[in-house]
């Protein structure tokens, strides 16, 4: 449970490498939203969640619901890095008969606990799981990751009302606020205004993370959320879509794009160079 900056940054780098490798195996995929959430997955799988890669179905495990299910490659990258399955399997993304589909599927992939892909639905699923834990008096946490574009789905706010009303403090929600959705900047498609103020108005304890690609800041936010016993917490991560790899961080629209196998080695070097500085100057700063 202790936080080790160096370890977490290395895990985040490993996850990013795995994401790129996974998508390169198919040639194309949801690059941007996978890279932006890599640091959060490193922290959750590295030192926060009560899970056991050797026993993915462990009864008293914490759940992670990645409601932006198109970031499946990030989940697979993290799960493989933590040993849920062989890293070689990453090269089967979206191939015939794969266990790694575009969108996360709890019946297909060891370590995936909720099926998502239709944006908005993970919010209710996570609230439902946390509500059941509350009813059962279980001490487990449910972690929910929403996209910022995803916040446009009304279902997210129905779930938020319920979560606040039931005081589901065992549900910790993250918003991957990378500022972009499929068709471009969220501000241009459908402005969200202040995500923080909206959740506050819905009755949440709001934690705004200035650099949502910084493992230290993410970890501190999670600890604050877990200490909060009155209101459910939301952690608004101000991230960069495509974070960690300059090519994608600077791309106008990297939502779904190509990764060429030939580029992998250079990307790996770029990532390795970030091991000591937390990724400064590599498009990871929000």
């Amino acid at each position, binding site marked *: 449970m202790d936080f080790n900056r160096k370890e977490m940054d290395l895990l985040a780098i490993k996850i990013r490498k795995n994401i790129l490798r996974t998508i390169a195996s198919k040639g194309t995929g949801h690059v941007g939203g996978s890279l932006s959430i890599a640091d959060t997955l490193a922290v959750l799988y590295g030192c926060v969640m009560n899970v056991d890669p050797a026993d993915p179905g462990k009864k008293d495990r914490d759940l992670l619901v990645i409601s932006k299910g198109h970031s499946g490659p990030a989940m697979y990258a993290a799960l493989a890095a933590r040993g849920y399955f062989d890293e070689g399997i990453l090269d089967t993304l979206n*191939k015939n008969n794969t266990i790694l*589909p575009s*969108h996360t*599927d709890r019946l297909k992939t060891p370590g995936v606990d909720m099926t998502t*892909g239709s944006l908005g639905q993970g919010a209710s699923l996570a609230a439902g799981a946390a509500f059941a834990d509350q009813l059962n008096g279980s001490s487990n946490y449910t972690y929910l990751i929403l996209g910022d574009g*995803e916040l*446009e789905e*009304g279902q997210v706010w129905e779930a938020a009302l319920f979560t606040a009303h039931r005081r589901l403090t065992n549900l910790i929600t993250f918003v991957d606020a990378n500022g972009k959705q499929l068709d471009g900047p969220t501000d241009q498609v459908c402005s969200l205004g202040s995500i923080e103020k909206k959740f506050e108005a819905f009755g949440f304890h709001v934690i705004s993370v200035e650099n949502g690609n910084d493992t230290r800041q993410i970890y501190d936010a999670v600890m604050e959320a877990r200490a909060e016993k009155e209101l459910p917490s939301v952690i608004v991560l101000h991230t960069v879509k495509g974070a960690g790899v300059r090519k994608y961080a600077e791309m106008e629209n990297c939502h779904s794009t190509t990764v060429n196998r030939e580029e992998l080695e250079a990307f790996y070097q770029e990532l390795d160079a970030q091991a000591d500085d937390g990724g400064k100057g590599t498009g990871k700063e929000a």
Partner: protein
Amino acid sequence: MRRRMMGEKEQERKHKVREKSMAGIKTSDKELRKVFAETLEALMEENPDVVYLEADLAGAIGTTGLFRSHPKQAFDIGIMEANMVGLGAGMSVKGKIPFMHSFGTFTSRRCADQTFLSGCYNRANIKLVGTDPGITAETNGGTHMPFEDMGIYRSFPEMTILDVAEPHLLKEIMKKMAGQYGVMYIRFPRKGKICYYEEKQTFEIGKGVILREGTDASILASGVEVAEAITAAEELQKENISVRVVDMFTVKPLDEELVLRCARETGAIVTAENHNKIGGLGSAVAEVLAEAGAVPFLRIGVPDCFGEVGDRKFLAEKFGLTAADIAGAVRKVVNKKGS
């Protein structure tokens, strides 16, 4: 029905039929999404009341330019499909004719109640566009692979359902959609390139098109299965089984007259659709045939299961949607005719 030996006359007739058959399947240089974007633009130019609402998939369907070129008619409203259908229905009460797009899963399942109540029950005038039906969702996988969209909507009164996979048909039918009042749902694959119609071909919503004549059986197909049906018919021709192929692109209202005519004239029917066997074209045809007194009949469709990621060929084989599957079904119904 009595088994007939093939007489000389019939041989001759079949030969003629063969000559009358369509040239076959060609590949277009334009993807269907391009046809969609161009036709939509033309419709908006022609009629200022035609509007386009998009739920954050303009990048996927290639319509981004329309927001700039037609800022008073084309709008990317965000990821809110249920809200979109409600908005469109409201706009239509004020005289607008909204075309609304997302993937087929989201313009059917995700907004079914809004389509039913704000749309159909409210007698609104909205045009729902659902791309990548069934197996054409390919790597988007089971969450994005609608095998149920037509089934859901077929039980909605006054709903029109169009299953299209051909550029000329798409273009012409979009014009009809804009011109005819009512709630309509069209599904087509974004990247489809297969074509089999000539420029002069005309279409009516609710009327099937006989693409190829035949006497032993009819294949009533829709969407991407039409091309498979043509291929199956060509294969069967080599075995001297003469098959009529009908493009039943309107799944609702079904061209019942043509279904009955095919039953009468060819004595055996196979349906083929890129959809669950339950609820779509096969069910619609079965209902008509059963009430009229049955002829040998089989359905080609997805065997009531969920989709998954994979390429078109893999998925078509897995779910039994290939030309060979259709041909196999035709052989069975033709054999049954004699027994």
